[in-house]
């Protein structure tokens, strides 16, 4: 049996020290990586026309809690692990205005989806408060769903799980 001439390519692993700056920077990245228990809060920003009306809508009707309202154009709300930022666009020096002057507008079709325990009673409550419905309760896949608008016209989807609803297991 002949030896494969390419056996000469065999390259044992010999430790090589990388640049100390690289080694230190990588270690910092590893140590800074959040652990599984330090889950980061998911944050959504909605643009709204009327901050007071919006805070009232989310807190009174959809179980959010007001965390911060440091200015007339910004509020931070929480609902469980979800953080909702409400910003009033425009105005002098507004950070969300694009370089070409475009000002963000409320509305559109992308939406947050909030789970509720009883969709029918939630819908009744929202109706009593003259909330705009884009569509009434409908059957989706694994959920019943309802699409409403906040006072600025941003869509908010409400769901109630039904059989077949998939929930990721907590680890």
């Amino acid at each position, binding site marked *: 049996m002949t030896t494969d*001439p*390419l056996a000469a*390519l065999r390259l044992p692993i010999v430790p090589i020290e990388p640049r100390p700056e690289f080694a230190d920077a990588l*270690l910092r990245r*590893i*140590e800074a990586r959040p652990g*599984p228990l330090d889950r980061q809060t998911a944050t959504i920003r909605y643009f709204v026309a009327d901050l007071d009306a919006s805070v009232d809508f989310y807190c009174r009707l959809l179980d959010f809690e007001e965390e911060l309202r440091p200015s007339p154009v910004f509020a931070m709300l929480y609902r469980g692990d979800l953080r909702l930022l409400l910003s009033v666009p425009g105005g002098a020096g507004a950070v969300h205005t694009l370089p070409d002057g475009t000002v963000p507008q409320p509305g559109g079709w992308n939406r947050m989806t909030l789970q509720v325990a009883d969709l029918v009673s939630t819908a009744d409550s929202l109706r009593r408060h003259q909330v705009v419905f884009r569509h009434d309760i409908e059957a989706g896949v694994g959920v019943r769903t309802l699409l409403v608008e906040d006072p600025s016209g941003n869509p908010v989807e409400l769901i109630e799980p039904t059989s077949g609803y998939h929930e990721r297991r907590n680890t």
Partner: protein
Amino acid sequence: MGTSDPGALVAIYRWALPQVYGYLLPRCGSVVVAEDLTAEAFMAAVAAMQQGAAPDVNVAWLIGVARHKLVDHWRRQGRDERSRALMTQSDEGIEDPWDEELDRVVLHAALAELNGFQRAALTLRYLDGLRVTEVAEHLGRSVHATETLLTRSKAALRRAYRRSHDD
């Protein structure tokens, strides 16, 4: 039983880093690429540990992660090269054994001239000494396709070797 605490990786970091870097640098031949791949390998190891998908943390496992990153790198490179149509050379004489004594330094230099797919296949098979079935697994190809790739890669290496040797 695996380890899910990234602290276990930090504990062996100073010892493991030169081993992983020492595996990658001679194989890719570039400090910039070796540093990128080393960082990718360690961060992938952290992610795997956090997801509970890591075995006990040791250097052999980290080298395996680094090997995957190296192969991914060459596959990306191979795709780029293929799009530039550099794999057009013929395969004549590919069954001929090399009967001369090969110059190890020239051989490694010739290897660096090959495209990403060929370099990955030959590195895993010959530099790392993996079995063909293991090479196939790393490359995500069938054993038959891997054998074909290895044969063509050896032919390409031989041409590159002869060019270098004749210079």
